[in-house]
């Protein structure tokens, strides 16, 4: 690992317009298709604030809730090697925005975030890839201290 060199997302702006169509050339892991998605901030109907985004497939009903992992841990730095940056059409890791997929479950305390396979997207090129970051947990609890 060379986090000092290949850190993704630090300094990338979440304020950049992301409610746009993104192309995932390799799909998501386990899903070769669909490859075209709309990525947009999720707004609850009553207009209250939400940290979530939705990745909605263009070709079918597949939809993934996402969260910017920086909201969970400032120490989260999945590496983006130069080859991946090239595939994303990015010149530096700062141009790449990471998202983590949220796995919703029946009980709110059981909801987890997948930090092991983040999505890296380039808002400029509208390209995205799901990568494997083995050192991070597959099921990281979303809520810090569950109130039972």
């Amino acid at each position, binding site marked *: 690992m060379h986090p000092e060199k290949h850190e993704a997302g630090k300094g990338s702006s979440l304020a950049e317009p992301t409610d746009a169509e993104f192309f995932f050339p390799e799909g998501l892991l386990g899903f070769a298709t669909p490859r075209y998605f709309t990525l947009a901030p999720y707004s*609850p109907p009553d207009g209250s604030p939400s940290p979530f985004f939705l990745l909605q497939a263009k070709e079918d009903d597949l939809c993934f809730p996402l969260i910017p992992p920086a909201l969970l841990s*400032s120490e989260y730095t999945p590496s983006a090697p130069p080859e991946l940056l090239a595939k994303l059409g990015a010149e530096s890791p700062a141009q790449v925005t990471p998202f983590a*997929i949220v796995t919703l479950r029946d009980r709110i305390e059981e909801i987890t975030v997948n930090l092991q396979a983040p999505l890296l997207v380039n808002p400029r090129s509208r390209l995205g890839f799901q990568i*494997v970051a083995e050192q991070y947990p597959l099921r990281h609890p979303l809520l810090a201290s569950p109130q039972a």
Partner: protein
Amino acid sequence: MLVLTRRLGESITIGDDIVVTVLSVSGGQVRLGITAPQSVRVVREEILKGIQEENSAAAKGLGGALPLDALAKRLGGAPTERKRA
């Protein structure tokens, strides 16, 4: 499935630029060294399967009523930062 027998230190090449070398064998464990281009994803099978299953579960999680509303409310916009264990 192609089956090959290799001794300690011997290798197998796959295509033009992937080399798998047997580094050590002890007990029931084999250590493999893998040289491959960065563009080739090299991952333990169970890790990849776990991620595929988690993706699948995440996609199904939105099947019913969207609990994201309640969740967003609970988090008040942004969850507080936590240290990783």
